[in-house]
């Protein structure tokens, strides 16, 4: 039985486990510092992001402004480097002219350097659950707007998050909500309604039927969003077309269309009509056995009953929804081999937490004795993005050091060089292949993805360079001297300290002996050659099966 009681003792190794699973790794020093507080307070603070210093990060974002790229379009780039926590969401994205790899690099940069790692890790978790793809959305800005919603509501009551995703402009394009009309003789478009239950709240065939899908689709018909004229970005690859820079959600309410707004559809943007067109299928809907009447204009937001219908899912199907969420949370944070009894317990926790409040649920789960059980350490295969970011945090220069060297831009450029490899390693950020996202745990590893992890390991450990502006720059600048603030006395100490830095699962003693014997066949001195060998050893550790686990 899973023991969900909170842990009472707490060591740096425990903190490191929390950092791997619920963040992107902690240095040995940071793990020790976290373990110095009582576990309850420390883990609450980790989840809430307390004590995080956003100042340096925000300043670095302004420095790392990607708009110094050569202009791609005709319009001069006038995007200011806006101070604040999220300066790229609109202005930056517009400057990038819908450049996916820039946006991916921006996310990876946030994961490596952001002061609130749990928020980024949780956004990554939700990104996989509400998997929405740039390929069809065709807007970096809308994809990043969705990421921001995931950051803001990742710890909210689940119905709030579910409703927000249902109103999210990227989602509305991705699953055709913008084309769902049930007025007159039109049959509603079921694309979003089906996934709202199958993939986003209940699981396939779990407490609903085809009729419920059709009724939910009808309840949501007419939902769309508008963009202001200034938020339409010319598509640099296709003259005359536009991509959306920012969207404002609209429920049809019979009101007038805001001045200067364009109604979005799958084909671009419609010329603004005088009033938002009535695409809603009126009348009552019967959903999961409950009847929902139209809300009249006097008492509520126009004809929109969709939100009430959506919010009813976790109430009328609490058992199924809590099972669904439990399975996903456990698979990402705890174990790929949990028993049904374990999952039932976590589902019970979710169901009995008022409003399925995810902050409370995660605080219990990530403090539990079960989470810290030895059997659950290194029990999951780490996904390629978090795997890479964790190695970069361990081996690369940190944000402050980069600033002191006056080379903050390179931190961002490094990610721009390698994000393509994420795709090859099986995780194209902001663009999963389908609405069911990426399969987790063992599915992360196959012969092809291992090949690209090898490539990423080389970039991170061996100090690979790329050429920019005629000068060779290290892809991920790192100094072996920084990995070893004091000189190691023996090959075994080199290995032990790298293991402490990179935190792989235990490496068999015979393998360690084989590596050390090959790398240091003769007497050991800590010289430049040994430092190169230490890089090679870091590469071997990153490639080892032990390092693929979290």
């Amino acid at each position, binding site marked *: 039985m899973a023991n969900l009681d909170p842990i009472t003792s707490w060591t740096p190794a425990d903190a490191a486990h929390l950092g791997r699973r619920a963040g992107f790794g902690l240095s040995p020093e940071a793990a020790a510092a976290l373990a110095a507080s009582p576990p309850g307070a420390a883990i609450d603070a980790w989840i809430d992001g307390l004590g995080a210093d956003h100042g340096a990060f925000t300043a670095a974002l302004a420095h790392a402004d990607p708009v110094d790229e050569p202009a791609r379009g005709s319009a001069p780039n006038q995007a200011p480097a806006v101070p604040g926590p999220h300066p790229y969401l609109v202005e930056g994205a517009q400057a990038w002219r819908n450049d996916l790899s820039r946006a991916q690099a921006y996310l990876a940069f946030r994961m490596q350097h952001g002061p609130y790692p749990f928020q980024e890790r949780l956004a990554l978790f939700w990104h996989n659950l509400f998997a929405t793809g740039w390929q069809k959305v065709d807007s970096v800005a809308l994809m990043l707007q969705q990421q921001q919603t995931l950051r803001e509501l990742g710890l909210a009551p689940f119905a709030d998050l579910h409703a927000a995703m249902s109103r999210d402009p990227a989602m509305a394009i991705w699953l055709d909500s913008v*084309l769902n009309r049930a007025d007159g003789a039109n049959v509603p478009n079921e694309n979003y309604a*089906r996934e709202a239950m199958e993939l986003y709240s209940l699981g396939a065939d779990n407490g609903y039927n085809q009729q419920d899908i059709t009724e939910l689709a009808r309840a949501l018909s007419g939902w769309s969003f508008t963009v202001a004229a200034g938020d339409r970005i010319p598509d640099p690859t296709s003259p005359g077309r536009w991509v959306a820079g920012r969207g404002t959600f609209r429920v049809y309410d019979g009101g007038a269309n805001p001045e200067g707004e364009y109604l979005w559809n799958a084909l671009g943007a419609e010329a603004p009509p005088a009033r938002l067109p009535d695409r809603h299928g009126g009348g009552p809907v019967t959903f999961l056995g409950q009847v929902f009447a139209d809300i009249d204009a006097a008492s509520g937001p126009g004809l929109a009953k969709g939100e009430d219908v959506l919010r009813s899912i976790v109430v009328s199907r609490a058992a199924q929804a809590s099972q669904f969420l439990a399975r996903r949370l456990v698979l990402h944070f705890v174990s790929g081999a949990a028993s049904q009894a374990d999952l039932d317990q976590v589902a019970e926790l979710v169901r009995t937490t008022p409003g399925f409040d995810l902050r409370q649920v995660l605080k219990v789960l990530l403090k539990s004795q079960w989470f810290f059980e030895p059997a659950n350490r290194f029990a999951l295969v780490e996904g390629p993005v978090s795997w890479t970011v964790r190695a970069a945090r361990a081996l690369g220069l940190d944000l402050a050091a980069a600033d002191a060297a006056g080379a903050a831009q390179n931190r961002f450029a490094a990610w721009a060089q390698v994000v393509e490899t994420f795709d090859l390693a099986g995780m194209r950020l902001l663009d999963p292949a389908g609405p069911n996202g990426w399969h987790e745990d*063992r599915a992360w590893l196959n012969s*092809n993805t291992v090949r690209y992890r090898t490539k990423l390991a080389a970039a991170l450990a*061996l100090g690979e360079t790329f050429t920019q502006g005629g000068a060779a720059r290290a892809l991920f600048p790192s100094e072996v001297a920084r990995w070893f603030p004091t000189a190691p006395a023996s090959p075994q100490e080199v290995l032990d300290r790298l293991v402490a830095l990179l935190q792989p699962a235990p490496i068999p003693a015979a393998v360690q002996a084989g590596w050390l014997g090959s790398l240091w066949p003769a007497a050991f001195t800590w010289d430049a050659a040994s430092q190169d060998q230490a*890089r090679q050893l870091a590469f071997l550790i990153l490639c080892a099966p032990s390092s693929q*686990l979290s």
Partner: protein
Amino acid sequence: MRLTRRRFLQGLTAAGAAAWGLPGCAPATRALEPASPRPTRPILVVINIDGGNDWLNMLPPTAGQNRSVYEQRRPTLRVLPAGLVEIGAGAGLNTDFSGMSLLSDRGRVAWIPGIGMNNPNLSHFVSTDLWGQGSAQPGGTGWLGRYADAAFAPAGDVLRGITVTNDLPVMLRGQGRSFVSITSPSGFVFPSSLRGGLLGAPWDAGLLEAGYDAAVSDPGAGGPPGLAYAAQVGKAFLSATQGFGTDGTLPPRTPAVPYPGDASYPVRRLDGGALSGGLARQLKLVARMLAGGLDAQVFFTRVGGFDTHANQQVEHANLMRALGGSISAFYEDLADVQTESGNAQDRTMILAWSEFGRRVQQNQNGTDHGTAGLAFCVGRGVTGGFYGAYPDLGDLDGNGNLRFTVDFRSLYATVLERWLGLPAPATDALLLQGAALPAYPRLGFV
């Protein structure tokens, strides 16, 4: 299967007669090439048409009640007679499915309309998994993975099963053997920076391999559960590098014909612009692997975008152009590929499938998830025509969906036994996995 009077009558028609292993019903008015004899080293190329292909608009009904129901339920999405080439059995081939018409004319395409399963739940993901497992008792392995278990050497044959996608679908997972995934012609090679860089070529792989071997042979009592798995995968990667030769790349090759996405390819998108070359790139890579002498027998490819809930008129036409163009280009290209076991065109069969078809009733400008789908096989060894009855559009289920006419495992049984040469008892055991069901009937196209 409930036998209605209508279905009984339909069973007497030409299309119905083709079901369950009877000779195919090919249009009698055209001169057909005879099928090639089954090769000694057959190759199978699987194309996963991802998203639930609206095959009703690929092979729309041309006559009778099926046509009138189709017209009525698809007021704006229906394909007009002018957009169809009659291919018999009351069905026409959409002219946007360009490339397939010529292959069909030559008798090289076996169409299986109405392929499906009992109790379909209309989920892409559940359906795809069931198609992958292909078993009455789903056990987490796939039918091609179990084939690899049965037919590939336990240690060796590393490159015999290959997916050119960068994942490992359920369909390809065996108990002891799985396919390797290769997405680029550089195959399996260490990053070039390593070969010329800090790590010396003679021993870098050796050190990695030592780590993999140790974890495979002795994962350690109480060690992390994923360790042996991670080591096996790493070992597969290293073993595959051996099959790619010393520099890890395939010899360059210029295809004999243009593929969709090539500048010289004649067919364009319906809305102008070039066709997507996604599938074409994968098939080109398969042809290059065969020409390069890779000893592979089963390949897996995927083309997505078929979840056409919206803007179907334009999107589906473009998808059909890319799909049909890629298949026909690949087929023609293979004629130019010689292998040790003979010409690749003679050796290869293409099997294309989708997890389901779509609802007969259109929504505003697209179609929602449905049931019975279309599978088809293409090759020199295929006897073209229709296999299994075209579903009866006048006899839909309570949700407006088609009733399937051929169990998808009949297709697998046919391919495993009659194309890949797995003995009949082994084929039945692979698909039934101990379930006490009658064996799946074989279809007669090979």
